[in-house]
Structure formats: structure tokens, C-alpha cells
């Protein structure tokens, strides 16, 4: 066996792989173009539903104000309804310049005036770290590491005096720790989960990165980081080269963190600085527990709520007087039983659409044993409002349905085997994987009978094409299965690699290929070339 023979065995499968990959991508692009063209063809501006202008009575205006008010709690548990008067759009006033009206729970007006003059101090609540600038997630960490034609980026935390950068701490994603450099390029050391060390071997990784936020403390120009991994939260001060482990979850991964007054930054509004808050981090773990980490004094508490509660809307705040929980919920929340089935979810949403529903907020006090005591509750009904239902146009839906029938059934298999959750997780990763997930979702045939019928028709065509050219039954069956599995891309691959010339058999008159000596129908050999006068080879 030499290189010439060996290469044929490897080149054959690689040739099939190359061809089918290119043709799958080409088919997907063509399908995408057809579907997008149909969408553009059918695009029309949706006229807004014009509600008949009905003049509201004073009582109705008042009721609408109450419904559209924000619910705020005082530290003693009293609830106020805070209504923000509509502003002139062109003015774009600052928040504390907006006109407000405050009502009690019975709808009686208590106060009216500018926000900055508000006499009441409401409890403020922990919020998720969000926003492109404030939070840096694992998705963004992957994005900056993407190679791209401009190379990957690095995460660097400077240590600065007023005008000058004195040190730079660069994150090493492979080792999951920070490496420090002076301004002359020399190495300072390493910051890992155990703190600062000048030895590479002693530096321990932080763990799988999930999120961080950064702020400059009030006495420094250098950022301090709150660094979240799958199970831990650290606070890293690069100027002091200190790492503090704030929280560690022993049993399950951290799902979400909320901060309240944790970062030592300038107060946002004058009112905020009057209530004696305690810095607080709330960690929601995947087992549904809310872990509270507080300072002044340092304390940790784990709160378990009712399994039916909407965990993501629960907020906490801690003052020197106590710890409070704010919970809001609505009847218009998809029941957990329906979440796994898109069909049931759609039916449920169609049933509740356009009907009035209830919303409510509750304030609880959390005692030292993490028990909840209801302080106050407010509920109200949101009236039914008709709103335009945007449905896909009939042409686009049909075109999409038929275009997808030329896709490979493997898309459906990938969708069912890997599951929606897996593909959702991949959305947060690599752009290409995300692209593959979107193609799978948008172009899958949906297990349609038409898809299988088309595939069988293509197999039939491949049979009609391949039978006269047959060299081996095994190869022919392989190509039939290949065409069935890859649909249009499979048929095109088969044709690209197997379209060889055919001639008419001189004996039976039927089509036959040139790769086999004997005709597959009558067994006659290939016709020999005619002898000519100058035919030196045959004459000798």
C-alpha cells in the first residue's frame, strides 16, 4: 500500500465532507434569502389602533392615576402611591425636577410637588447589576477573547494616582487570575483567590468567571472589583493588593446577584443618604435560596421563600432597624407547568390576552431566623386593553414553511436531542455556535411529512441517476441514505461527486456508465475502439 492508494481512502470521505458542508451552507443562505425576500415583500407599516378619544371624568382620571402610580414603602411599612406627571417630551427634565403626586393606599392626595422636594423617604431596594457599562458578564469575556482580525483584547485594571498609571493588572483567562505589571513592564506578582503572591505556583485561580462590576472608592482613583464566579463572590482591591471572599455557595451555583449600597460611591439622591442603610448583597442560587451578605455589622442570612414565588422579582434592603423584603407579582405570569411547552405557553397567552388581571406588591420584615413577617400588601387590577396583535403575514409564513422543507432532518434531530436550554446557553457563547443555533431553530423542517416526502423524491431521482452508473451496490445504498439524511444538500453532493458520462449500450440500447466493464442490464462489455489504418498499437 503506497501513498497513492492510501490517499484515495482518506480523500474520498474528506471530499464528501467538504462538498456537503459547502452545499449545506449554500442551501441555508439561499433559504434565508428567499424567506427574507418574502418578509420584505409583505412588510407593511402596522397602523396604530386609534382609540376613540373619550373624555374621562375626574373620578376616572383619578382612578387611572392610581393605577399608573408606583408603589413605594416607608420604613414603617406604610405604602404610598407615587404618580409622576407626564412631562413635555422636548424638555427632558432631570429625574428630581419631575412633578410628582403622592397618594395614600385609599387614594387620598398627600402631597404634590417636585421630586427633589419630596418630604417622604422611601425604602430603596437592591438591583441587579445590569447595563453594558456597569456589568461585565461571561459573554463579554468571551467576546473580548474572540480572535478577530484585530486580535483579541485583554482585561486590564489600572492602579492610578491622580494623573498617572502606576500599575496594570491583567486578567489571564487561562489561569483565572490577575498578573500585575509596573509601568516599566516588569512583573509585580499575581492576584488569585488566596490573595497576592509573587510566586506563580502559589497563585490559585478564582474559578469560572461569571460577572464583575467595578467602582472607584471615595478615596481612590483605582477601581475595586466585585468578582463573581460560579460559586463565589470576591472583592478585589488592586491598590492594596487584597482579595476578600465575600460569599461562597457550597451546594449550588449562583444565579443572580443584587447590590444595595455595597459600592462606596457618592450618594445618588439627597434623600438616599438619610436612611441608615447597611451595605447588602443578595445572592440567588439555583436551589432557589436567597443569601444575604450585609456589613455594619457583618452578617450573613439565608432566606427561603415559597416555591411558587417569582424569585427574580424579590428585592431586599437592610437598614439599622431591620431587613426588608419587597415582592411583586402578577396574575399574568406564565405558570411553571407551561414553560416547557411552547404550544401550551402560546395557548395560555392567547387566553389571557385582552383581559383584566391583578398585580400586587408585598412588604415583609425578615427576622434574625430568616422568617418572613408580612407588613403590608397592596393589590390592584389592570384593566383590559386591546392592543395590536402582530401576526406574521400569510405569504411569509407559507414561504418559510415550504423553504424549510428542503432542510436536512438533522436540524430537527439536533433541536430535539440538544434541547432548547442547551441552545439558549450556547447563545451566550461563541458567535458561530450562536449562528448555528439560530439556523437550526429558523430553518428546521419541524418534522414535517412534506420534508420526508421531498427527501424520498430526491432519493428516487438519485436512484434513476445512479442505477446506470452503478459500480457497487454498497456505494449506491450509501448515497441513497446520504440523500435521505441531508435532503437537497445531499442530492447536490451526490450529483457533484457522481455525475459521470453515460452511453447507450450497443447490445440492449439502455443507458450505462463507463466505470464498469459490463453493462448492468445485459452484461455486454464496453465496445472496443474501431481499428483504423494508422492504428499502430492494434496492427502490431
Amino acid at each position: 500500500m503506497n501513498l497513492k492508494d492510501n490517499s484515495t481512502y482518506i480523500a474520498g470521505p474528506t471530499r464528501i465532507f467538504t462538498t456537503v458542508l459547502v452545499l449545506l451552507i449554500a442551501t441555508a443562505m439561499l433559504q434565508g434569502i428567499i424567506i427574507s425576500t418574502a418578509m420584505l415583500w409583505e412588510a407593511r407599516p402596522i397602523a396604530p389602533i386609534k382609540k376613540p378619544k373619550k373624555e374621562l371624568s375626574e373620578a376616572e382620571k383619578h382612578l387611572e392615576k392610581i393605577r399608573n402610580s408606583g408603589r413605594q414603602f416607608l420604613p414603617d411599612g406604610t405604602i404610598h402611591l407615587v404618580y409622576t406627571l407626564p412631562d413635555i417630551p422636548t424638555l427632558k427634565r432631570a429625574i428630581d425636577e419631575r412633578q410628582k403626586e403622592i397618594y395614600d393606599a385609599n387614594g387620598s392626595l398627600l402631597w404634590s410637588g417636585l421630586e427633589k422636594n419630596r418630604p417622604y423617604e422611601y425604602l430603596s431596594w437592591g438591583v441587579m447589576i445590569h447595563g453594558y457599562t456597569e456589568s461585565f458578564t461571561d459573554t463579554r469575556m468571551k467576546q473580548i477573547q474572540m480572535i478577530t482580525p484585530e486580535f483579541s483584547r485583554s482585561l486590564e485594571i489600572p492602579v492610578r494616582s491622580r494623573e498617572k498609571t502606576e500599575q496594570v493588572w491583567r486578567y489571564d483567562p487561562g489561569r483565572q487570575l490577575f498578573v500585575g505589571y509596573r509601568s516599566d513592564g516588569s512583573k509585580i506578582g499575581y492576584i488569585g483567590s488566596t490573595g497576592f503572591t509573587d510566586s506563580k505556583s502559589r497563585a490559585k485561580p478564582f474559578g469560572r468567571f461569571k460577572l464583575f462590576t467595578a467602582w472607584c472608592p471615595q478615596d481612590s482613583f483605582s477601581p475595586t472589583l466585585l468578582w463573581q464566579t460560579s460559586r463565589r463572590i470576591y472583592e478585589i482591591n488592586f491598590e492594596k493588593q487584597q482579595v476578600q471572599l465575600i460569599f461562597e455557595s457550597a451546594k449550588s451555583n449562583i444565579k443572580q446577584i443584587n447590590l444595595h449600597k455595597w459600592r462606596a460611591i457618592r450618594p445618588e439622591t439627597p434623600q438616599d443618604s438619610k436612611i441608615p442603610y447597611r451595605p447588602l448583597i443578595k445572592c440567588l442560587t439555583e436551589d432557589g435560596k436567597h443569601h444575604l451578605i450585609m456589613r455594619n455589622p457583618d452578617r450573613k442570612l439565608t432566606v427561603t421563600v415559597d416555591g411558587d414565588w417569582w424569585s427574580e422579582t424579590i428585592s431586599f434592603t437592610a437598614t439599622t432597624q431591620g431587613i426588608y423584603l419587597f415582592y411583586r407579582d402578577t396574575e399574568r405570569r406564565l405558570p411553571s407547568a407551561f414553560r416547557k411547552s411552547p404550544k401550551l405557553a402560546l395557548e395560555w397567552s392567547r387566553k389571557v390576552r385582552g383581559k383584566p388581571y391583578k398585580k400586587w406588591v408585598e412588604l415583609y420584615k425578615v427576622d434574625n431566623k430568616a422568617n418572613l413577617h408580612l407588613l403590608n400588601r397592596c393589590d390592584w387590577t389592570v384593566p383590559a386593553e386591546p392592543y395590536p396583535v402582530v401576526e406574521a403575514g400569510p405569504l411569509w409564513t407559507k414561504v418559510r414553511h415550504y423553504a424549510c422543507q428542503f432542510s436536512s432532518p438533522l436540524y430537527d434531530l439536533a433541536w430535539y436531542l440538544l434541547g432548547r436550554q442547551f441552545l439558549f446557553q450556547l447563545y451566550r457563547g461563541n458567535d458561530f455556535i450562536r449562528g448555528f443555533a439560530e439556523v437550526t431553530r429558523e430553518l428546521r423542517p419541524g418534522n414535517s411529512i412534506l420534508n420526508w416526502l421531498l427527501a424520498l423524491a430526491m432519493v428516487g431521482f438519485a436512484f434513476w441517476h445512479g442505477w446506470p452508473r452503478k459500480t457497487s451496490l454498497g456505494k449506491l445504498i450509501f448515497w441513497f441514505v446520504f440523500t435521505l439524511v441531508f435532503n437537497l444538500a445531499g442530492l447536490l453532493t451526490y450529483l457533484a461527486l457522481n455525475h459521470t458520462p453515460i452511453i447507450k449500450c450497443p447490445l440492449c440500447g439502455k443507458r450505462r456508465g463507463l466505470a464498469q466493464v459490463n453493462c448492468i442490464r445485459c452484461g455486454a462489455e464496453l465496445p472496443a475502439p474501431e481499428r483504423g489504418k494508422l492504428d499502430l498499437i492494434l496492427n502490431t
Partner: protein
Amino acid sequence: MRFLALLRKELRESLPWMLLAAIIFLAIGGFVLRAQAYLGQPSWYYSGLSPGTVVDTYRLTHFSPLRMTGSWLLVTSIGLGLALGVRHFWMPLFTRTWPFLIHRSANRPTILWAKLAAAIISFIIPVGVVWVALYRYSCRPEIFETLPTKRVFIEGWLFILLGLVAYLGTALAGLSSARWYTTKILGLAFATIVICMTIFQWRLGWAFAVLVVGVVVLLSQIIDAFLNREF
């Protein structure tokens, strides 16, 4: 001896393209790098770092000073790959000189290895050496405020290898006996897919894995086509 003779012949034919690639990359890549050194870090970059404020996390991510040079490296590598692929495998087709080359006293594998070796040397010397020089220059803290990471150096070599992928794709397209409107350009199309899939990876290991798979797929078909087809 025959291999060396063939190698010298291929290198001689590739020399103009090697020199052109080296000059373009050194001139333009060096110019943009020098411009980056002159501009330095924009003064607004850390202007948001004042006491008692939340930091914009975008300001904490940094491109290396070789950012613009990287684009030129990729373009030069791919361009060199296309040029060498055309020179080695398309020109003999256009000038009908394949029989002269194939029917020498050297066997076909020797001829093919000579071409591939010439291509690899053509990437290492003009592009690779210049890349190493530019990277070393960018590591000087007295000139650049932000220094590049070691990963950037490896990514540069990845770009050079992508030029090799472009070369192999062009070679396969040249060796294919199919019509141009059928499957002749599949080699180039596959090379394009490999290049795109490689540069949008965020893990270096996966990027190299995609590259290696692409090279193996293309190389196996080139070897089969060159050794078995009739010229």
C-alpha cells in the same frame, strides 16, 4: 538531490511574491504600529476613573498596540496564499506546462512535497520573520503604554497559517478537473469557511483544532488529486 533542485526551482518562482508580501507587511504594518506608538493611550480612556463613581467596564478592556497590524497580517497572509496557489498550481494549467513538470525524472510525491515545502518556507520567511520583528518592537514599554499579550503572538502565527489554508484551497481548486461552474471552486469555498470559523473562535485550542481539521481535509484531497489525476 532532486527534491532540493525542485525546491530551489519553486522558491525561485515564488520569490517575487515573497518579497512583495514582506515589503507590504513590513511597510504598512510597521507604519500603523509606529502610528499607534505615537498616538499612545487616548487621554479619555481613564478619564472616567474618579473617586466615588462606578467604572465603565468597557474602559477596562484593551486592544493590543498590534491591533491594526493584525488586519494587515491576515490580508497579507491570505493574499500570499492565493498568489502562491495560483503560481504553483494554476499557472502550469494556463501555460500547459504540467506534462513538462510531471514527466521529469522525479516522481510525483517529490514534486508535490517540493511545492508544499516551498509554500511553507514562503510563509515563514517573509511574513513570519516580519511578524516576530514587529511583535518584539511592540513589547518595548518605553515606546508603548499597553504591551501585547503572548496570546497575540500566537494569534499572529494563526493568521500566517490561515494563509497556508488559502494556499491549499487554491491548490485544490487548481488541481480539480471539474468545470469551473460545477465543483472546481469548492476548495476555495471550504478554505473560506475554515478561515471564518477560525478567526471567530474565542479559545485558541478550538481555533487550532479547526485549522488542523481544515488543513488535513484539504491536504488529503490535494495529495489524492495530484498523485492520481492525468495531466
